[in-house]
């Protein structure tokens, strides 16, 4: 067997010969992972205590509290906000929820959540639980409000649609009425109802033409009478349609009725038979007709005056109708605008309005409890501290061992002795890694990720072991080496992603921390273990470079330190 293997085997054997050491090196990591596996089965909040203060209890605040309680959080009511906050400061409560104001639906509500950031580990589950509960209630309230608004809008649209038809009907009616009024006004405009009475005197009853002249007169009179009747009907209608007082209307109607009688008489008078066309009769008839015509003319003149008044009145009505039409057109336009605006509201789902963006956290791992976080974290912790502690303790215990003198006299080069320390350490950490991975595999059921994770763990172990060896070379006292290793381990842990997300820290610090093996290793272990990502091996390339540099330093020191010690 080569000296390297002999020495390494002896280091491992002497280390593991002590039961306490076996317990520390192998049983503790195993137990740690097993405990984590069983304990982190759920992320229960049953022991989380939240104090509550509400300035005035409302249905909404009670509902929020109820939802939080359903998450498993223990609620304790306080009488004042200060008491509630003090309870957080004193550690009685993990957080304090203060409902400010009335906290009613529809009001602008403010919820103060007092937390203790020093309890970092509790912050995440606490905030997660409270945010979840509050988000649910806020969604519900928002949805209610949105539903109300959407319903109102729908009602408005329906109403507008309904009224729009009425407006159109009204417009049409007014339009029609205006048209009718216009026609009526035109119709009652005094026509040329005058009859030249001289026609009758011009009839030369002696002449041969008198028959023709009489017929012309009779025809003109008949036409006049009929025309007059038509006009009188129009005037009567106009009187009814006018805005005149009832008394005026009655007076006018009486005149029209009188005129109508005259027109009928006139029509009767014009109804002269051929037998009447005798000169004797004719003269009487003509005189009578002329007299009627005169009377009718007077009546027509009176009616014409009424017609003028009525026409003016109807024109005024038409103007008003036209003005109403304009107003109605504007109203219609407004309705159209409202309809268009309502139709532009394409989202009508209250859920979509209340929560237009819904955040649904979808875990990318099969496990949703703390194991996926805890296992990589614990593995790194175990390897970090083992790697920092085992090599210096091996080296120092070898130096301080009773066998140190005999070991120093072995014909083996110092570099081989250093390699043996490394080999022994990597064997121990490799065994730890294997044990932890088996436990992790059992709990997380991520068998595909075990091999890449093992390689990552070995690389991380190698680098940390080299750091530990540096400590062992530079520090000769066991207690000091242990302290140095622990302090360095704690620093590396604090500067890792496990406690505070590095990306939230200042950039220069974040970049510096990225050199930390715990950071690179932690991320690589997580991705390789949980997702079986072989690509994570690339991310440990930086670690390999760091390890190479450390190895060179160790080789130089390994050559120099024995020389110095001999002197």
């Amino acid at each position, binding site marked *: 067997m080569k000296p390297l293997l*002999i020495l390494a085997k*002896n280091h491992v054997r002497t280390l593991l*010969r002590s039961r306490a050491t076996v317990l520390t090196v192998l049983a503790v990591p195993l137990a740690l992972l097993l405990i984590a596996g069983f304990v982190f089965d759920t992320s229960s909040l049953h022991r989380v205590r939240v104090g509550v203060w509400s300035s005035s209890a409302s249905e909404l605040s009670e509902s929020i509290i109820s939802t939080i309680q359903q998450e498993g959080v223990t609620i304790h009511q306080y009488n004042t906000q200060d008491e509630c906050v003090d309870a957080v400061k004193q550690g009685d409560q993990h957080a304090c929820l203060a409902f400010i104001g009335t906290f009613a639906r529809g009001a602008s509500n403010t919820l103060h959540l007092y937390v203790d950031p020093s309890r970092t580990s509790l912050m995440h589950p606490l905030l997660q639980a409270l945010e979840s509960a509050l988000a649910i209630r806020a969604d519900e309230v928002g949805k209610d409000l949105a539903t109300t608004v959407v319903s109102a809008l729908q009602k408005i649209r329906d109403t507008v649609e309904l009224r729009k038809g009425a407006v159109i009907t009204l417009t049409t009616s007014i339009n029609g009425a205006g048209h009718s009024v216009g026609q009526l006004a035109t119709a009652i405009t005094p026509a040329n109802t005058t009859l030249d009475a001289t026609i009758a005197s011009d009839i030369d009853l002696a002449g041969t033409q008198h028959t023709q002249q009489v017929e012309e007169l009779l025809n003109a009179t008949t036409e006049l009478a009929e025309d007059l009747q038509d006009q009188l009907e129009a005037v009567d209608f106009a009187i009814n349609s006018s805005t005149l007082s009832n008394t005026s209307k009655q007076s006018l109607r009486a005149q029209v009725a009188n005129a109508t009688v005259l027109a009928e008489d006139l029509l009767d008078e014009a109804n002269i038979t051929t037998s009447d066309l005798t000169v004797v009769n004719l003269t009487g008839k003509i005189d009578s007709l002329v007299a009627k015509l005169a009377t009718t003319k007077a009546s027509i003149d009176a009616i014409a005056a009424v017609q003028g008044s009525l026409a003016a009145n109807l024109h005024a009505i038409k103007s008003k109708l036209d003005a109403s039409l304009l107003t109605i057109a504007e109203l219609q336009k407004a309705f159209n605008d409202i309809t268009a605006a309502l139709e532009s509201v394409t989202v009508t789902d209250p859920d979509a309005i209340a929560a237009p963006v819904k955040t649904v956290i979808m875990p990318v791992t099969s496990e949703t409890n703390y194991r996926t976080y805890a296992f990589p974290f614990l593995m790194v912790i175990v390897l970090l501290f083992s790697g920092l502690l085992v090599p210096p303790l091996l080296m120092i215990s070898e130096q301080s061992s*009773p066998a140190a*003198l005999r070991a120093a*006299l072995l014909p083996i080069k110092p570099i081989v002795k250093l390699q043996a320390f490394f080999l022994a350490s990597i064997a121990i950490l490799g065994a730890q890694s294997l044990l932890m991975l088996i436990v992790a595999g059992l709990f997380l059921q991520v068998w595909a990720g075990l091999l890449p994770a093992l390689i990552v763990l070995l690389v991380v172990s190698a680098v940390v072991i080299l750091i530990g060896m540096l400590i062992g070379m530079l520090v000769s006292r066991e207690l000091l080496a242990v302290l140095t290793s622990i302090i360095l381990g704690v620093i590396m842990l604090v500067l890792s992603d496990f406690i505070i997300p590095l990306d939230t820290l200042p950039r220069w610090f974040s970049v510096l921390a990225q050199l930390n093996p715990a950071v690179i290793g932690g991320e690589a272990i997580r991705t390789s273990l949980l997702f079986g990502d072989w690509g994570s091996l690339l991310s440990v390339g930086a670690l390999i470079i760091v390890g190479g540099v450390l190895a060179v330093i160790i080789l130089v020191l390994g050559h120099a330190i024995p020389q110095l010690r001999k002197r």
Partner: protein
Amino acid sequence: MADVLQSFVQSSLSKGMPQGELEQTLIKAGWPKDIVLKYLHKGTEPITPSKNAQIRMQGISKTFDGKKVLDNVNLEIVQGEIFGIIGQSGSGKTTLLQMIAGLVQPDRGDVVAFLPAGPQSVRQSPEAMRSFMGYAAQQPSLYPDLTVEENLMHFGQAFGLSERAARQKAASLLKLVGLADTRSVRASNLSGGMQKRLDIACALVHDPKLLLMDEPVADLDVVLRTHLWDVLRAINKQGTTIIIASHFLADLESFCDRIGIMRNGRVAETGTPDELRVIYSRNQEVKVELGSRAYDDLVTFLKRQQNLEIAKTIKELGTIKIQTGQPTATLEAVLQFSKQRKDTLLHLEVGRPSVRELFEELFT
């Protein structure tokens, strides 16, 4: 006398007095020249290289935290010999061994190992030297959590033995050091003596040609000590050079081919035990055993006599050792005392003091 000279030399040198001036001062003061020269120069003079050297140290000096631990040491260890190093605590014995092993680098000078491949500077070729030698330190150097066999197997394999060969070697060594029954016992559960034996076995696991041992028999009982010396002697007979630093001077005296005496960071003298006794002891030792064991009266009687030059008396195991510059006169006086007291003279022997006594003479 040695005390006075030693403290004076140390004091004068530490005050910066030049060595030549100090030498003249001591001679003028009446100190014998050979003694003065030994105190001032021994161990620092260049050695004459021998053909069969195994280790040669030339002009080695080492200072730790301002204290000179080794001062211009020149020493040569010959192949196949058992070389003992004696000296007070802090005299540099362990540093000397560690320097041979390449665990400590000299500030000045070099350690050259004569390996089968040729002479090699230990500083430049520590690995070659380590394959060649075994080292058993004062404190057992073992993995406490490994079993006896695992310790041997580990070091054997680390030295290049196959698993099978290492297992076989472990079995034979465990038998050799009397730990065959404890092969599955953790090293931490062994007694101090057993750990020491296991440590020696570990030093031997790769059949080294040079064995460096720092207090190898400390913590061992007399029986085990004797057994271990026998083992080492057997190993030595196979051609392994052994360098031992020990406080068990009597054992070294009987076991070592040569002994080096270290004082103030220097190898003050090297030689066989007999040579050292001759060099360092101006007295001889009269060993007496009286039937009455009235040794206090004997000492009082002797001190009353003129010109006996009694330097020291040591009562030991029912006898008394009388170190004297006039052994003949002292013998006569002892005979006279026994005759006057009508005491039975059970044992009477004249000889040189042991190395241990010399050591005590030199350093106390």
